[in-house]
Every structure is written in structure tokens, then in C-alpha cells.
């Protein structure tokens, strides 16, 4: 299955938008380096629409109490409800439990259009 989502400039780096692939709601994310990723638009926890959340960063794991280092800006998809986070460059793995992953879909750019495949 194939779905043309939008023109590639319609999603700015660091933003996302919802779409459908057949009957499947998907969220297409664009990281700050301009790459596109697509996932099922449904949180693994209680099913919230992820596209209503935010693309943000993470705080780097550290051994030093009180040390904050903001990393992966624009690569973490945070759910609009209970704020569970998914690493979009790491196959949609949940940060807290990386063995749980969002279903991901292939994205290509064809004639400047964002196309999602199943």
C-alpha cells in the first residue's frame, strides 16, 4: 500500500503531521536534519494520538546528579497524554522500555512528495 502524504516542505524539520495509510492512522515526523519517519499514530500505552504530542529531545543519561544535557532535539516523540517517549531514529523504541516499539512504515520522497508505504 502507498499513500502520498503531502509536499515535503509542508512538514518543517522538527515537526510532524498525521495522515492515513489505508485505514491506518499514521504520524509522519521530520527530524531537524530533514529526514522523514512514519509510525502508527497510536500510543502503545492507552492509545492517544501521538501527532497531538510534541517532537522534543531527551536528557542524556549521566552519573552526575544534577547534570542536565539536552540531546536528540527533535528526535523524541512525546505522547500528548502521559508523556511516554519514543525515539524516532531508533525504530520508534520507547525510551523507558526499548523493547516496546511503535509500528513503523517506510517513507520515501518522490518528486518532492512525502510517500508512506506499507
Amino acid at each position, binding site marked *: 500500500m502507498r499513500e502520498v502524504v503531502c509536499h515535503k516542505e509542508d512538514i518543517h524539520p522538527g515537526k510532524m503531521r498525521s495522515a492515513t495509510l489505508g485505514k491506518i492512522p499514521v504520524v509522519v515526523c521530520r527530524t531537524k536534519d530533514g529526514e522523514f519517519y512514519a509510525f502508527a499514530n497510536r500510543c502503545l*500505552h*492507552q*492509545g*492517544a*494520538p501521538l501527532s*497531538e*504530542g*510534541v517532537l*522534543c529531545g531527551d536528557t542524556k543519561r549521566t552519573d552526575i546528579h544534577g547534570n542536565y544535557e539536552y540531546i536528540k532535539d527533535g528526535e523524541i516523540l*512525546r*505522547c*500528548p*497524554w*502521559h*508523556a511516554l517517549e519514543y525515539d524516532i531514529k531508533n525504530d520508534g523504541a520507547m525510551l523507558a522500555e526499548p523493547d516496546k516499539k511503535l509500528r513503523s512504515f517506510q517513507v520515501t520522497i518522490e518528486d518532492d512528495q512525502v510517500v508512506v508505504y506499507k
Partner: protein
Amino acid sequence: MPKRQKQRRIIDTDIHERVTYSDLLPYLDNPWRRYIEDNHWVQEKHMPYTQPTVAGVDRADAVTPDGGAAGTDLRFMQEQLLDAEGHEYGILSGALDPSPSSMHGWYEMGAALASAYNDWQIENWLEKDSRLYGSVHIAAQDPQQAVREIERVGPHPKMVQILLPIDTRSWGDPYYHPIYEAAERHNLSIGMHHNEPPTHFGGWPRYFIEWHTMLPTAHMIEVSNMVFNGVFDKFPGLHLIMIEGGFTHVPHLMKKMDQQYKELRHEIPWVKRMPSRIIQDHVRFTTQPVEELSQREFMQFVDQMGSEDMICFATDYPHWDYDSPLQALPKLDAALEEKIYSENARAAYPKLPRPTGGAK
């Protein structure tokens, strides 16, 4: 369109409508109104952190269509919650933020705000949607004044409870008993919901994650305080609903209180039954924010509580830790589901209408 996969009655025991000061001004007399307009008075806030989520305290998708704060628009609440989930009833527990009863001074202002809030709630919510039932707001620091407000709005057919904040005061003290006497007189339950309690003994924890994890300790303090101060011995018809503390702490609390009662009951001779029995008879706990539990784990907690009647479903809409009626709890047997999603709440709120006919 209701998305009912299951024909289930839902009585949602925690829905937050939200007011802004400008909404409230028309309901305030002077000088109170002028203290806000001229002197820019705002309620005191204490919490040193924010909720590190997408939209602070709110579900990010609950911002109203015109960009207003979540919970300010009845139409949108109907669409996103009441119609979408197929609610039978919902109990509004909005409160000002913090509650007038949380104020550390100027209780007269607290009382004026509580009255204005009650009038605003009745006119804009309770009388506009038949599914919504409300909470009487009071400034409980002055119980006599609070009783006058309960007498004024408590008889409204859609007011089902008196809301008290879980904060730095413990409400079991006999000083506050006139409030419970008035509650019983008007068939109102007592709902307790945390505002901004520092978790006791450690004061404010350093991080929000600690504060939010330990909220049930603040709820436990209130339940212990109400029971051991004899509130339920004195007011045998009183129902207490502990809102937004979950229920998994309850088996521990019941067991601990019983053991202490066996050893120390002579200190509180006005308490005449085992604490666990009093809790089973009088206190209800709302589910949200529920931990992810398997059916087996869920049933272990129910077994340890010794009752299927104590847990009531709540969404906490529109807050970030909202629990979905179809996703939050594990599958349970049909009779228990009916109790948790509706009938336990119906029993805890005597003013809610009894069920009509079969399932909707």
C-alpha cells in the same frame, strides 16, 4: 459518535472544568471583584516544578478549538469526552487552583471565590448538560461560613458532593465536623482531591516525579485522620470519595490501621469498629492515575481490600494523566466492571439518579 465497543455505563468521578478569573468576575461582589480587577490578586501557588509533559497539567489534545485552556469549553468537553466515551454521568471536581480551602489566609476572600465558583458552575455546566453533576466549593478554614455556603447551594439537585482539598490541613479534626453534619443533612458526599500537598515529613520533594509518585501518601494521611478522629462514627451516613490517588495503596493502609487499632485503640475510644471495616463502609477510591495492571494483579488488590465496592472509575479529563475508559484497566469480569465503571460511584453519591432500564 460514541465509540462504544462495549455497552458500558460510565460514571466518571473526576472531570476538571476550568474557570478563568474573568469568567468569575460577574459572579463576585465587591470588594472581592475589585481586589482582582484593581489589585491583580491571584491565588497563592507553591509547587516548585512544572509537569514536564507536552502541555503541562493538560492533555495536549484538549486545548479548545479556539486555543483556550483545556476544560474551559463545555461544547468541546462534550465532543471529546462525554459523547466520545458515552458517559452516563460525570462529576465535576474542577476547583479553583488551588482550592479556596487551601488558602493560608484571607478566608473571607476564599469564601467569596467559593460562592462565585458555585454559581458559575451551576449556570455554565450543571444546568447545560444533564450528564454533569457538581461539587460544592467552600472555604473550609471557617467552618461556620462554609456551612452557610453548603446550605445555600447544597440543595441544588445537581450538587452531589462537597469538595475539600488534600493539602496541608487534615480535615478529620472536630473543628471541621460542622461541615460533615451539613453534608449528611443535604445528602452530599465529601470528595477529597489533592491540590498541592507537599508530601508530609519530607516536605517538598526535589523533583516532580517524586511528588507525583508519592501523592497517595497525602491521601493516606487524610483517610487515617478522618477515621481516627471518629468522623464516620459520628456521621454514619457519610460517604468519602478519595479522588485521584488511585487505590493500590489502600490494602496496605487498611492492614496497617487495623494493626495499630488493635494496639492503640484506647487512645481513640470514639472509634468503635476496625478501621478496615470503616473504610470498606464509607470510603471510595477513584482509579486514576492507574498503574498498568494485569487482571491478576488488579484482582489481588481487590481481594486484599476485601470488597468489590470500593473502587470507582475516573478519567481526570482533561489532564495529562487522563485514563481512557476503554484502555486503562485490564479486562475484568462483567459484574465487577459494572461496579467499578458505574455502580460503586452511584452508591457513593446518593443524589445521582438510579439506573433506568437495562444497559444503554
